[in-house]
């Protein structure tokens, strides 16, 4: 009995084995077939997407679709929120003026490169946007910029300040003052104001943009003959800085230079003041947020940063922008991110108007590239031949919880 049973089982096994392999073969074929089908469909969709805008070219009545990739949730959400507010305000004004109509499509990148890539793909292929504003972080731009460039969609960073962004391609722009222009202004101003001889440097070493800022700080210090007595690193989202700062405190620097986002910068400042470091702190663009003051409180006093945006400027356009922004957003004073986003949408609007299209990406790109003498809330603005912004910065210092001009 047992023998027979065994043989039956064996047989079954064999049969099953054959069946399974056959099935696998079938499934494989099916899957390949389906994948090819799906691929064909998507490429067909892409082709349709690519040609459709060309077909109804110059349809002026339609709103121009502009995609936005912003850091809307997570540790740097204040950046994304400010950008969204600036853009919404500009959109309402532009649509009310009626020369061009703009529709904004928001996507959240959560400060992550992969999310930024997904967002760019969605905006380009699914939403069929004519241009993109964002992403928020330079690291995200390094990931998403090449995708937009390859698809021939203009993409403009409003806060991407690391070196080498427009070099990503002909379709990549930025109206953010790059760190290599802004940071040296802040560092040199601090050196001359406080007669700095030896300084400590800190930066976030897992953030492309912060590392780029650090390199700029380092080269500026070297050029000015200031000694760097300590270089300490941390990572984005770190919370404990006591070890680095205790070490820095024992070396007694004349100033500390920090390249990081606002959250880390605020915690560094807080801890530094707590353990008795009272010297000035010079920061990169991350210091440019009211959130820094909100989180660090009185510890933020003495922080120095170069900013293209200064709300205290006695300029009619600037003051009107601040008044409108305050009226729309609960008496909130716009920060640099809101101001640059606001200007970016106006840049798009004037380029759209000049190009006379709401769908032709190539024409829009050419129109943006030729922008000169644009007057925005962040001052006079132009793109140079490398699509880098030409603009001036003001060096600011935080005093009693307010950004004031460092003189």
């Amino acid at each position, binding site marked *: 009995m047992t023998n027979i049973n065994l043989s039956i089982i064996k047989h079954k096994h064999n049969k099953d084995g054959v069946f399974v392999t056959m099935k696998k073969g079938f499934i494989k074929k099916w899957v390949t077939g389906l994948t090819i089908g799906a691929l064909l469909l998507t490429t067909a969709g892409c082709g349709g997407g690519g040609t459709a805008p060309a077909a109804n070219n110059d349809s002026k009545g339609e709103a121009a679709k502009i995609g936005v990739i912003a850091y809307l949730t997570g540790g740097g959400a204040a950046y994304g929120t400010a950008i969204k507010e600036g853009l919404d305000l500009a959109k309402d004004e532009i649509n009310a003026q009626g020369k061009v109509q703009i529709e904004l499509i928001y996507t959240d990148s959560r400060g992550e490169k992969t999310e930024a890539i997904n967002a760019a793909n969605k905006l380009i292929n699914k939403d069929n946007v004519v241009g993109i504003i964002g992403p928020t972080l330079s690291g995200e731009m390094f990931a998403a910029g090449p995708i937009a460039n390859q698809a021939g969609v203009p993409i403009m960073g409003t806060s991407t300040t690391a070196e080498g962004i427009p070099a990503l391609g002909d379709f990549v722009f930025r109206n953010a003052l790059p760190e290599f222009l802004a940071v040296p202004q802040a560092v040199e101003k601090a050196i001359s104001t406080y007669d700095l001889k030896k300084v400590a440097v800190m930066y976030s070493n897992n953030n492309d943009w912060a590392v780029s800022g650090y390199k700029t700080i380092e080269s500026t210090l070297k050029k000015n003959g200031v000694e760097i007595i300590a270089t300490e*690193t941390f990572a984005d989202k770190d919370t404990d800085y006591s070890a*680095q700062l205790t070490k820095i405190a024992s070396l007694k620097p004349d100033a500390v230079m920090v390249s990081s986002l606002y959250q880390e910068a605020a*915690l560094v400042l807080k801890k530094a003041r707590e353990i008795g470091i009272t010297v000035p702190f010079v920061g990169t663009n991350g210091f440019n947020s009211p959130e820094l003051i909100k989180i660090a409180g009185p510890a933020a006093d003495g922080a120095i940063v170069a900013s293209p945006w200064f709300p205290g400027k006695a300029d009619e356009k600037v003051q009107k922008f601040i008044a409108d922004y305050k009226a729309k957003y609960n008496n909130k004073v716009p920060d640099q991110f809101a101001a640059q986003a606001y200007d970016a949408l106006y840049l798009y609007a004037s380029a759209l108007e000049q190009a006379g299209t709401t769908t032709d990406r190539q024409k829009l790109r050419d129109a943006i590239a030729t922008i000169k003498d644009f007057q925005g809330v962040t001052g006079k603005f132009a793109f140079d031949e490398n699509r880098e912004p030409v603009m001036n910065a003001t060096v600011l210092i935080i005093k009693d919880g307010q950004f004031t001009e460092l003189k």
Partner: protein
Amino acid sequence: MFWQQLVNGLTLGSTYSLVALGYTLIMGVLNIINMAHGEIFMIGAFVGLYLVTYFEVNIFVAMAGAMVTSALLGCLMETVALRPLRRKAVSHLAPLISTIGVAIFLESLALNLFGPQSQAFPTELAAVQMQLGPIRISLVQIIILGMSFGLMFVLRFWLSKTRVGKAIRTTAENIETANLLGINTNKIIFLTVALASGLGGIAGVLVGLSFNAVEPTMGLSMGLKGLAVLILGGMGNITGAMLGGLILGIAEVFTVAYGASSYRDAVAFGMIILILFIRPQGLFGKRQGGRF
């Protein structure tokens, strides 16, 4: 600078220990890794923060509030996500995956309830400083050190000397035998999860106090450190969790102080790998049986 850095390391390390204690308790009794512990810790931090900011209560009241909320949350997790899986003969990985689910749920909930911004405790507490010889220590650091060491010793004593503690240890040894001995193991498991989560809540408030950054994603990084300490100390060993946390904290701080800050985590975790090479069962883990 040495003594100051030692204090920094101890403060950091004791927060790791506190987080690891929660993992250890659940690991010891239920033999699972509770991936939601970091998020329960985060919720505890937020409850403490809101109690201090909006109800202006004393920090110890806030800690108690955080502890109760986290403990209740732990019980809820046990009822909804763990107990149903224990009744059926499911894979060992099932409870692990379901706690990951709880973790993601809690993080999303916190993002919606509290917003993505990092928030801070009022600064008055951090501002109180003392100079003891070469060391400058803040009131917050003293509270953290005191609370963590206090809690660890109370926990150890309670587990080894009291009746309930003995019941927990028996359950940890073998659930079936404990059942046969007349211990209500369901009740004991409930108690353990509540205790572990409550400790997590307190740790949340303490970490929030010392680092001044309470945000919905804080649970992940702290949770990872806690897990590392759990393994370093020996799975389910309380002394191991205590000392493991301190070792990790001091290793991290000293790497920054006397080495390069870029290698902070690399050195700390490299050291853990090295220790595990020599003692694969962890610092205090036994090769067989006998937990706590």
